[in-house]
């Protein structure tokens, strides 16, 4: 009891909690869930964009995309490492992903259908992710906060690259390219603003997470911030956001936007999005196909250790 109060006091004082510090089991559990989910999202998130590496339209774009997807894998790596400081192994977390117990960001259950999707994911999806993640750089758990600082720096870079690639197509491209960009925006806009999660009134866990300094802003707050920022960027691009209800609200000093299709949101979260089954099956297959490699690496390391001991 006293320990909990002391713990809460440290958080309230803005101190970082470190791996060796005492923490309430529920805090630990919440963090493992959140960090591993974030790590899984990076790993599964490699697949939709990875789908276009072989078909990137220029060598420069291919290099940028390959480096970006690689960065996502890197984010996965240091997020798993951050979660491991809380006492859960990477294999345990992967088991939870592969068995369907752990979640990953629902956005990756949509398919990438054209090259413009790659740019739009950079602009909108990474943009929304950054809005969600920047506050986590001040998260109360030190290892997570430090991982997020690195993640956010790279994500902003990706977001600018994505936006720039769209700008090139919209400003110097052919009509077919412009149509491709608009089509991609039409498909990704609503899923992107769903990335902030349900309305505050429907959001579980939020209050406790706020108190623990794991969450710093409400879903609706961040969503509004994202919409406000994006509307201007869309104008510069010269594309139309697919929401007829989008308009400036002078009183609120914010952009109003239309009703989100929460049925779709929950359907995709629940497993019935266009790609849920395939994404998971792809990860599971990669894992299973790689089993003999992991086994051999382990066997080799063991042999090698024995030889060293024997020597």
């Amino acid at each position, binding site marked *: 009891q006293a320990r909990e109060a002391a713990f809460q006091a440290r958080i309230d004082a803005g101190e970082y909690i470190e791996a060796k510090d005492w923490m309430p089991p529920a805090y630990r559990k919440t963090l493992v869930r959140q960090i591993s989910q974030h790590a899984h999202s990076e*790993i599964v998130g*490699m*697949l939709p964009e*990875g789908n276009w*590496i*072989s*078909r*990137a*339209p*220029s*060598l*420069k*774009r*291919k*290099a940028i995309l*390959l*480096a970006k*997807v*690689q960065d996502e*894998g*890197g984010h*996965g*790596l240091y997020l*798993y490492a951050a979660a491991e400081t809380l006492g859960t192994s990477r294999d345990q977390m992967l088991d939870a992903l592969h068995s369907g117990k752990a979640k990953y960001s629902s956005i990756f259950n949509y398919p990438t259908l054209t*090259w413009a999707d790659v740019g739009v994911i950079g602009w909108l999806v990474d943009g929304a992710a950054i809005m969600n993640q920047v506050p986590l750089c001040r998260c109360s758990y030190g290892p997570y906060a430090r991982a997020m600082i690195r993640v956010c720096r790279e994500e902003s870079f990706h977001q600018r690259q994505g936006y720039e*690639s769209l700008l*090139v*197509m919209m400003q*110097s*491209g*052919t009509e*077919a*390219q412009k149509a*491709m960009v608009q089509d991609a925006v039409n498909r990704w806009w609503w899923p992107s603003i769903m990335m902030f999660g349900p309305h505050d009134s429907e959001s579980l866990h939020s209050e406790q997470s706020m108190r623990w300094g794991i969450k710093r802003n409400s879903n609706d707050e961040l969503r509004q911030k994202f919409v406000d920022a994006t509307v201007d960027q869309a104008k510069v691009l010269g594309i139309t956001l697919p929401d007829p209800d989008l308009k400036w609200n002078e009183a609120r000093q914010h952009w109003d936007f239309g009703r989100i299709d929460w049925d779709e949101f929950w359907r995709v979260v629940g497993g019935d999005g266009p790609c849920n089954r395939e994404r998971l099956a*792809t990860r599971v*297959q*990669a*894992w299973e*196909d*790689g*089993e*003999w*490699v*992991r*086994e*051999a*690496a382990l*066997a*080799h*390391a063991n*042999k090698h250790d024995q030889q060293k001991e024997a020597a």
Partner: protein
Amino acid sequence: MKLSNTPAQRYLLRIADAALILSQRNAEWCGHGPILEEDLALSNLALDHLGQARALLTHVGKTDGLDEDQLAMLRLEQQFLNPVLFELPHGLHGQRDFAFTVLRNLAAATWFTLLWQRLLDSSDAEVAAIAEKSLKESRYHLQHATDWTLRLGDGTAESKARMQAALERLWPYVGELFEADAVDAAAEETKLGPSWASLQMEWRAQMNAVLGAATLTVPKDCANAHRGRVGIHSEHLGHLLAEMQYLQRAYPGGTW
């Protein structure tokens, strides 16, 4: 595609295309590796080879006013000059065989390292500069591929069997790396670069050492039947290019 196709261009295209096509193949692992770290390593390898290809393609195209993308995206299959080894899929029927990937990367890195080393002395200063940067990368690739060859060759019974099978599949394609021809001779003559045949002894010595340490058996040599270096490829390259070039062809005149 108005490429003059001088012997010097062809010599350099063989190297550029080897790097480009191998990059395309290794990138197929992105998101599908057996271990996350290896996923990243293979992407990195693909990125390095892509960078090497871009530098060489840009250099090769300059005199004809062609840029890297025109060369990569608009040449027809018969105009690609990489040895067939580099275009082979990781597995025969759509699967990714990590054993094959490792061994091809070992063969390629050994070869690239020897080649870049000799290209440091190229009479073409630009080529020498590209070689200098690339050599550092290829040395790292070689170390990485060597480590994995040892691990998997001398790992479990299954991994050894897979490695040996992959080695048998790969071996008929290595001969092409060392065939001598006129393009090659011209490069040696002008000191643009070494004849590839001259790399063979050292390549074999290094490969034998690594494969031996990995407890693998070097297959018997067979007559080389492959002629990717003169544009006669395997049936695999066409499929690879259909993907790689699709966007440039489906959206002609686009700016990317």
